[in-house]
């Protein structure tokens, strides 16, 4: 890096108290309008799906057979389905499940991936080579096929869904973490920490882990939409969550079966799902640019 660019980076914030990496990143993220809008949109959708079902009068389960296939209007904002259930309530409730699956499965993959990658990168040598060979083999397995197989064979089990999706997504996380750990290991401050006689666990958790967080957070942000998409694919094939519970994927499936009578049944779940994916992707891109200004921007 040239001296000039290093200088300009140091003086982005004129806060006399100094500026941390995270503060710099936040300022850069705020400067990216698309990412900021996405962030607010995502917070809005999250709040809506978390709080909405608690506040709403109509429940996602309540049927009203006198009021089936009602178009969107005053009575019900997004219309009703074939059993007279309020679509707005169902979309909010479905979003809860979709987002929960997205987050929990990402956390599972994060924990496995970071632990595996850090171990592999820190130990290095033969163990590293062996551990990465395992990842390479797993990489070449047709995993979507396995996830579908797992769901069909062992039934639609919510816990299994997390395990299956988490098992697919940790591989890339492990690779990223390992690469970062390998290069951090060579850094002078790690050498200094070792020279001071710190234990391996202290070096790993106090010095390496905090420096890994940037890329890991960026990748995690991009994993959430990928997981949500996989869950929706499973739900669409009838392998995800079951009625009366619903996710956006299963609502889209139901909607696609009845769209000729009631197009709104596919329109609204599809809209919420697509916009949320869009926002998460923009946010992930924005975070990448903010946390790692050196990374290429496409």
């Amino acid at each position: 890096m040239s001296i000039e660019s290093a200088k300009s980076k140091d003086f982005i914030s004129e806060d006399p108290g100094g500026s941390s990496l995270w503060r710099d990143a936040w300022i850069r993220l705020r400067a990216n309008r698309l990412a900021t809008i996405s962030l607010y949109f995502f917070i809005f959708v999250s709040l809506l799906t978390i709080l909405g079902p608690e506040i709403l009068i109509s429940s996602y389960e309540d049927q009203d057979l006198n009021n089936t296939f009602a178009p969107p209007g005053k009575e019900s904002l997004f219309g009703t389905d074939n059993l007279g259930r309020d679509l707005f309530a169902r979309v909010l409730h479905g979003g809860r499940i979709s987002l929960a699956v997205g987050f929990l499965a990402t956390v599972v993959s994060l924990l496995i991936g970071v632990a595996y990658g850090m171990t592999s990168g820190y130990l290095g040598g033969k163990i590293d080579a062996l551990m990465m060979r395992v990842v390479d083999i797993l990489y070449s397995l047709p995993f979507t096929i396995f996830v579908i197989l797992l769901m069909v064979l062992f039934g639609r089990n919510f816990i299994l869904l997390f395990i299956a999706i988490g098992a697919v997504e940790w591989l890339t996380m492990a690779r990223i973490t390992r690469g970062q750990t390998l290069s951090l290991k060579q850094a002078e401050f790690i050498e200094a920490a070792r020279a001071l006689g710190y234990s391996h666990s202290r070096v790993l958790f106090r010095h390496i882990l905090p420096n890994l967080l940037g890329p890991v957070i960026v990748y995690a942000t991009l994993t959430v939409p990928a997981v949500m998409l996989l869950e929706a694919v499973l739900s669409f094939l009838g392998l995800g969550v079951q009625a009366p519970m619903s996710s956006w994927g299963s609502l889209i499936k139901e909607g696609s079966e009845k769209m000729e009578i009631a197009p709104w049944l596919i329109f609204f779940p599809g809209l919420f799902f697509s916009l949320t994916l869009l926002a998460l992707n923009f946010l992930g891109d924005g975070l990448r640019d903010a946390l790692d200004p050196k990374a290429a921007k496409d």
Partner: protein
Amino acid sequence: MVKFIVVRILQAIPTLFVIATLTFFMTRLAPGGPFDSEKNIPAEIKEKLESHFGLEKPLYEQYFLYLSNLLQGDLGPSFKYMGWEVSELIAKAFPVSAQLGLFSLLIALVLGLPAGVLAALRKNSAYDYCLMTTAMLGICLPTFVMGPLLILLFSSWLGWLPPLGWYSFADMILPSLTLGLFYGAYIARLTRAGMLETLNQDYIRTARAKGASPLRVVLRHAIKGGLLPVVTFLGPAFAGLISGSFIIESIFFIPGLGRFFVTAAFNRDYTMVLGTVLFYACLIIILNLVVDLIQASLDPKSREP
């Protein structure tokens, strides 16, 4: 080159072995059997069926039997489609899926490449913004939303195209378009990024300085480097086309391999599931190898010393 191919094929053997083992035990340990779903089968007949397929033997014996048959290229008989070999069923269903995949890829390339090149050449213009916004929309509209919406528009409302089936050319348009638009959007973004990077290279400036026409600069000099990210993407894209075909084939009722696979898993048709998974795995491995070879021929730097 030959060494590279041989090494890759040798590396594929343990992978395929792991896949066969995993799938075998997964299907067998799952609750239910191939002959459980039929109603009112007398116990003797069920026993006879099971002994006919060797299901009464201990699991490890069945496993070794399957592996030894596999080594001879025999995928065994289907448990559900009586009188059919698994390989025959794959040979019947795969061409349909392959056709769908090829048409989709063709649509994706025809739409994506020119869009990406145009956006890169007119960077930050109205063209660029329009094309890239459309591409982002295409990526975020998953196939299972896009498919039904296209059916709604073109067959329910306009009545131009049939909504399902796989008999005539008209049947093939909507499914291929659904899958193709998604990948086309990806390819457009990747092409734009690749072209932008290439257009900044010194050798492009040299070509321009030597008086090459803009068209010649793009077609003769820039496109090779600009296509690299697209080629890299094609590897995962093939795998994606395969899993995408599960969705598309179930939306449009297409009798392809994806539908056969899902049905077979539901039916506990052990040999059919194993055969299909192994077939998909081989396909992915071969296609990845082809992609790597294309990449090596486009980018001398990626060739191993």
